[in-house]
């Protein structure tokens, strides 16, 4: 029955001819329902579709069944087979992190000083991390993923700033907690990892906890890494380096990439004494770099002297 009043509609639901039945029968029916629940509660309820049975999860003996996409706190992945971490320190997760709790620094090539696709340090402040998962979403290398760990309560505040060693997990761990999600990205992640491994010299980029693997790899490598001549700093014309507009850019770039001994077309190259100092001081990259800088300065002076 619906009645219309000024404020709107009032709907009355008739609950049947209550007055005809035995008074108190409804009460007994309710008690019967509760009795069934009492009886049924001695078994465990395993599905939310059913209404009888105990829903209690006896934590901590019983763990909650977490869905794969449950996200709580990020972790870094490394490949157990090769020992290499997937992270290339591209800074995308650091950029996207809303509370800005990710900090990292990129590894540099010890000889050339160039940036390498590997980490030297990686820090996440777990106490401020809100587990939004944006870092995992944006990572192009599937290196950072969301973990399922929620039992993180502690009285040690400083211990919540986690470093690379504490954040590292083998791929098999992530495969265990989120198999479908890993299967989707596995191939592309491994492909990128192979590419990155090629660009990482000696043991840079390997997970620090895999000490034996690192030692084994070190043994594999040739004993003396010939430090490449600091051709990079010598080959391109110094003037060209400072004034890009006037010079042939492609020429500069090709000179930069040229191997030592090649592409010395520019006049400055002829002047500069070939940096023979480098082979003369083997395995001493610092000395080599120092020699290279000296050579550079000498070449510069020579060029200026000539230019005058």
């Amino acid at each position, binding site marked *: 029955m619906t009645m219309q009043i*000024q404020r709107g509609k009032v709907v009355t639901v008739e609950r049947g001819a209550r*007055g005809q039945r035995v008074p108190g029968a409804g009460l007994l029916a309710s008690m019967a329902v509760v009795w069934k*629940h009492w009886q049924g509660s001695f078994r465990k309820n395993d599905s939310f579709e059913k209404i009888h049975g105990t829903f209690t999860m006896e934590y901590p003996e019983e763990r909650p069944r977490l869905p794969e996409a449950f996200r709580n706190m990020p972790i870094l992945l490394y490949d157990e087979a090769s020992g290499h971490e997937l992270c290339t320190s591209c800074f995308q997760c650091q950029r996207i992190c809303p509370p800005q709790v990710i900090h990292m620094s990129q590894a540099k090539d010890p000889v050339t000083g160039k940036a390498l696709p590997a980490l030297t340090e990686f820090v996440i402040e777990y106490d401020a991390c809100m587990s939004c998962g944006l870092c995992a979403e944006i990572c192009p290398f599937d290196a950072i993923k969301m973990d399922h760990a929620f039992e993180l309560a502690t009285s040690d505040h400083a211990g919540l700033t986690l470093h690379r060693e504490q954040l590292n997990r083998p791929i098999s761990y992530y495969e265990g907690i989120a198999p479908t999600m890993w299967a989707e990205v596995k191939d592309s992640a491994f492909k990128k990892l192979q590419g990155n491994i090629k660009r990482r010299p000696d043991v840079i980029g390997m997970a620090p906890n895999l000490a034996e693997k690192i030692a084994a790899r070190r043994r594999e490598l040739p004993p003396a890494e010939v430090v490449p001549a600091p051709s990079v700093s010598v080959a391109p014309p110094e003037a060209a380096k400072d004034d890009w507009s006037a010079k042939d850019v492609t020429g500069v770039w090709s000179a930069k990439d040229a191997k030592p001994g090649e592409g010395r077309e520019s006049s400055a190259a002829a002047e500069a004494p070939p940096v023979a100092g480098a082979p003369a001081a083997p395995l001493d990259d610092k000395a080599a770099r120092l020699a290279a800088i000296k050579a550079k300065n000498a070449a510069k002076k020579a060029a200026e002297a000539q230019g005058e």
Partner: protein
Amino acid sequence: MYDIVDALLNRTFGLGWPGWSVALIGHLFVASLLFVVAPFQMLFFTYYERRAIARMQDRVGPNRVGPEGIWQPLADGVKLFTKEDIVPDVADKWVHLIAPCVVVAPTMFMFAVLPWGPGMVPVNLSVGLLFFFAIASVTTVGLMMAGWASNNKFALLGAMRAVAQMVSYEIPAVLSLLAIVMLTGTLSVVELIAYQGGLFIASADMPGLPDLGLGWIVFTPVGLLAFLVFFVAALAEGERTPFDIPEADSEIVAGYMTEYSGMKFGLFYLAQYLLNFLLCAMAAVVFFGGWQGPGVGWLYAQAISPANPDGSGVFNVLAGVLGVFYMLAKTYGLFFVMIWVRGSFPRLRVDQLMDFGWKFLIPLTLVNVLSAALWVALTRWGPEQGITFTAGWSPLLRWGAAFVATGAVNIGAYLALGRVYATAQAGRGRVDVDELELVTTTR
């Protein structure tokens, strides 16, 4: 107790102590036993209730503190003891302090007339039933003190509602027991139990039945209706859902107990559970025969008792154990029904509560009193009282006639009164279109 102590001291040990000292020792022993037993009962009841109500709500209940959570009540007790005792500044200090005592003490008094087994009643009063309910009423004074002394308007309102509830539900409780008293002709609790020996019908009505201890009053129509009314009234008396307006865990803070913390609150809690235990126990005694059950009568016949001073002490123990077992089984069973009711129904509003007590239960109990008179007339009265048509009937026939007559009267009255009450309540629930229009129109 006197006989046992007397037998122990004067015969086994040969000390010739005078009667008054034997009685004193007996009473002191029983009193201390009760002061230990009562809180343990209450602790067990809190645990029992929490587990049972949890199961009804599809969960498990406390099971962490000790095996299956049996130390949970102890943990609760420790918690209450260690809480800070806060007394509001503007409260009436002495009354605030004494109110919990005034609520607990009469409840402890009620244990004095409760028989646990054959011959195991602390004080054998000839008016035990009257004493039981008279003392129970004194607790309402304590409730009023608690509400007033808190100097809190809402606590005062809560206290007044609690007092109104308790006072108005004592009437159907006592009237239903009045019918039983008419049936058995005695106010003494011990005699009430003795009346309920026999087999499915009271043996006092028909001597010669085997004593299986199953002659419970609840198996008669008068007894059944009286039990139902008494049980509902006991729910209201003990402030249990659906009559727990004063406490209303999920609504008002705690009614008259609002300004109490720590052990004072614990005392109110204790008093409430003890009262519920005692009401369940009294229902078990009056309607289900108390300690009566198969075997107890036979064992007790051979034990030391006023009727048999030369019995054997062993049988006392055996009869006592079995009797206590039956008594507690019935009490705990009735408490389970109280918990079951708590798990099934929502709370009554205070006006619905008062209506239910005064307009439904009391008329029902008055009809029951009439039925009880009918029963007595048919089973016991004869030509001297003016009932001539039953002269010459066998006891079984008289009993059968009484059963049928009272059954018809009770069922008819229940249905009729039920319909009247239901229509009256339904009439109050719906609001007229005009009234609704009046109430909701904005100018």
